[in-house]
């Protein structure tokens, strides 16, 4: 007699399940069963289909069923300024973010970037609100960003926090412009205002949207930024700044502990060495910890590597980013060998890269193989972990997401193998790590809900959202002249070097 089948909500069946579990099981002709927002079974198709009856079934024949990707670092806002960049002139991010963007603009941008992530199979994405520093002069910008995330159904971590008090990315005294009652109003604000607004966002949103939304405290440079860079020619006055940096860092740690949120911050060569020298190793270790996510981490020293490993802090590496041009690369291999958890991320979608996290796998593997002059660096399986389960660990969410296992949240994507560039499929994990792109993802499921199926987005009207983004961007560019960044002169087309804007 046929056994009574258990009623569930969703069955994804007939594909190769790449579980990313502890044994890295691959199940040919497998299936995943989902009830509510959780995975209730993973196994061979025949077994799962015999045990469950689903309200909705997705046929995954010739597809890979795998955990959704997790992008641990990007910036909200960047979706609106893609490609607007000229090497020696930089890009217009800060003037637009601080003085030409409305709450609706931030909603449109969040929706646009969330759509991009859904399309590319990223089910959890971190965004820092604005460039560094985050825009926290009024909580409305975070609110509107998170409204969009709620509407589309993505899982997200939003980083909010104050600008760095010593680094004038934005004009000092700090000011931001707001569009209120039909006109632009510019207001000054303080570090304390921004901290207060950040706390407010944390309290209202952390754990929101059925737990899909987390807030992190985004501190531009927790221990300052020591290494000079062509795009970052700021010098700290150590005598003046060191005590304040420590006071602020301690305050960040207190907020993180009190509110149960992570700290996300940038680290480059020398920042941790400075902190250790001025504040002592113990103090630094009190502030760092497994709930701290260090972005970039370029060109750090062996002693800084040891400090990160001891603190069990997480490292996010981004391969093709301006910081790597001018600093050295992030020492990914020594960090991993020291025991640190290292993951790959996009750093957002401007000025010259997309939110396609897939592209980071081959770029990162290749970059470090070149650097070490050795092919036997960063195996493709480890690379896949660095955008799934290791990335979940970075966000402290490894018990909830990052692998397809019973009891975890149903964040699942399907990769369509019926593409010439993914045929034949002899060594599947390597094929995915080296060959797949975001556009090969055809179905994206978050929290058990199908956000995209067969490349059609189901939860929002994609076309209308794209139009909205184009409209909002046009409005902001009426206030900010970007022509210097987009000039198509002869150098742009024909010269081996672009000297436009180069001084001297």
């Amino acid at each position, binding site marked *: 007699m046929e056994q009574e089948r258990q009623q569930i909500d969703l069955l994804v069946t007939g594909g190769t399940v790449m579980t990313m579990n502890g044994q890295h099981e691959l199940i040919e002709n497998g299936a995943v069963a989902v009830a509510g927002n959780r995975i209730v079974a993973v196994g061979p198709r025949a077994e799962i289909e015999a045990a469950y009856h689903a309200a909705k079934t997705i046929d995954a024949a010739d597809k890979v069923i795998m955990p959704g990707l997790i992008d641990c670092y990007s910036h909200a806002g960047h979706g609106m300024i893609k490609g607007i960049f000229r090497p020696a002139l930089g890009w217009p991010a800060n003037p637009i973010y601080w003085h030409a963007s409305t709450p609706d603009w931030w909603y449109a941008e969040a929706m646009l970037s969330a759509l*991009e992530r859904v399309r590319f199979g990223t089910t959890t994405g971190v965004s820092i609100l604005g460039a560094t520093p985050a825009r926290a002069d009024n909580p409305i910008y975070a609110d509107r960003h998170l409204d969009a995330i709620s509407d589309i159904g993505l899982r997200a971590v939003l980083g909010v926090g104050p600008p760095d008090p010593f680094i004038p990315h934005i004009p000092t005294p700090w000011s931001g412009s707001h569009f209120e009652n039909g006109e632009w109003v510019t207001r000054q604000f303080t570090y304390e205002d921004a901290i207060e607004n950040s706390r407010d966002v944390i309290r209202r949103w952390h754990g929101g949207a059925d737990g899909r939304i987390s807030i992190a405290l985004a501190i531009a440079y927790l221990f300052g930024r020591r290494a000079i860079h062509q795009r970052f020619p700021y010098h700290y006055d150590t005598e003046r700044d060191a005590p304040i940096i420590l006071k602020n860092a301690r305050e960040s740690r207190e907020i993180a502990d009190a509110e149960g949120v992570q700290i996300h911050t940038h680290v480059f060569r020398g920042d941790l060495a400075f902190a250790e020298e001025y504040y002592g190793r113990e103090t630094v270790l009190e502030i760092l910890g497994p709930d701290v996510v260090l972005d970039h981490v370029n060109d750090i020293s062996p002693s800084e590597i040891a400090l990160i490993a001891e603190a069990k802090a997480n490292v996010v590496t981004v391969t093709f980013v301006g910081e790597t041009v001018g600093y050295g690369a992030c020492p990914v291999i020594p960090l991993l060998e020291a025991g640190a958890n290292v993951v790959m991320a996009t750093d957002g979608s401007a000025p010259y890269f997309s939110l396609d996290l897939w592209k980071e796998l081959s770029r990162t593997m290749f970059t470090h193989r070149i650097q070490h002059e050795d092919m036997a660096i960063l195996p493709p*399986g480890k690379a896949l972990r660095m955008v799934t389960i290791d990335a979940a660990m970075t966000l402290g969410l490894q018990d909830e997401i990052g692998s397809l296992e019973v009891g975890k949240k149903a964040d699942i994507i399907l990769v369509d193998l019926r593409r010439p560039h993914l045929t034949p499929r002899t060594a599947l994990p390597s094929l995915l790590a080296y060959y797949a792109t975001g556009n090969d993802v055809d179905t994206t499921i978050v929290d058990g809900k199908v956000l995209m199926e067969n490349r059609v987005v189901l939860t929002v009207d994609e076309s209308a959202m794209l139009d909205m983004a184009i409209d909002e961007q046009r409005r902001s560019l009426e206030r900010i002249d970007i022509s210097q960044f987009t000039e198509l002169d002869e150098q742009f087309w024909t010269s081996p070097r672009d000297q436009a804007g180069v001084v001297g």
Partner: protein
Amino acid sequence: MPKTADLLILDGTVVTMDDAGTIIEGGGVAVVGDRIDAVGSSDDLRRDYHATKTIDARRKVIMPGLVDTYGHAGHSMVRGIYHPVHGWPAGHLYWHETTPEWWYAEARLAATERVRFGVTTGASVIGSTPARLDNPVYAIRNAEAYASVGMRAVLGVGPPDPFVSHIPVPWDGTHWENGEWVTRQFTYEEALANALDVARDWHGAAEGRIRIALHPPYLFGRHATDRDRFKWEYLPEHIPVVIEKAEEMRDLANRYGLQIHTHFFRGSVEFAVHHFGRERVESLLGPDVLVQHGNDLNPSEVEIVGGTRCNVATSPSTTENIWCGYAPVVELLEAGANVAIATDGSAPRFSFDLLKDVPRAMWHQWIRFQTTSVLPAGKALRMVTIDAAKALNMDDQIGSLETGKKADMITIDLNQPHLTPHTFIPQMLTYYVNGNDVDTTIVDGKVLLENRRYTTVDAQAVMDQALEESARVFERVDLSPYTEMPRDYWHGARY
């Protein structure tokens, strides 16, 4: 009285890639037969033409088809089958386990992939280096496959290198004949004769879409130490043979009007200059030579390659960057070389998606010079279109959208989240677009892909055939050294 066009593409952003860098918003292209009849504003084209077929390119870029100056036939069957210590099985498979049908299936798969990624002209060396020319049938089946898909293709054919053979000496290849495998030895002269046979029959075939290039793997030998990967040494008696073969290639290229495609790495040119003299070396080089890779050439080598106006196909995704170091692209350009960006596809670790290689090529130079001010995005885009066409000596026919040129073009769908807003379109193309964003591919005026649907091939059947042929081969070959996934595969910083 309006003219009749066979095809009108309207209302897109035309990125012409002409010398002035003309971009036409709300523009289009009119095609008559296999040629571009006009490029201009959509209003003008609507006024001047009736069309049998019209393609709506709203929120799309219309641009010349991409030109991939360097790839390998055979590789599409061995994607991802790679282990950093054990290597990969390509050489053995190609020489001893493959049938003509396998080569046909592989080439159909490769051409189908390239069409999907907007590559309208693709060069392929038949096999790994060296090309498999122990029998002309393998190259012929490749040419037939590319011709059947409708792509434009350049096949690299030639004998193995007499001193640095990837295959065992005496050279042999195994053929499937009358139901059994037969292994036969062959000589340099036989392979060269086969290559010339293929050239006679196929150069200019398929309405001119198929071209043949001579591919001596290493025109001046291979000399970079490559961290002990290639350990051959040239004995004194080898040295006169190197120049003798190189001069023979030059004669054949001149006689048959074929290009020479060959690998240079650091030391290749220096070796030749040292032994044969600069003048003699320079007399063998020229604008009909395409140098593949060019990694880590030293300044005097850059001067010679640039000064003789050679072309260079730099492949930013390949292993050679790891073994030899980067290619000095900026210096080569400044020395007068024409440089194209190529895939070296499509195995063991990268696809035929040429667009992925554009930011990689830029990035490598940015890292070399520690500034983002080298290799501007517009120049990089030329390096996969008009400059790449020039590298194949085809820039009078393809590589830009200009009246009179062949109608090889693509459209790119901008109405996607990662391409919205598209304020500065040339930089969207270099930094953000990937091959999958191409939605229409046209070669010789014929639509091969429209809205991501193939019109000349049944893609599912092509993939099924490739799976079948690869399964047949893999039944006989133990792939486990390349595909095992021990603990370190998943957890190691290193293998």
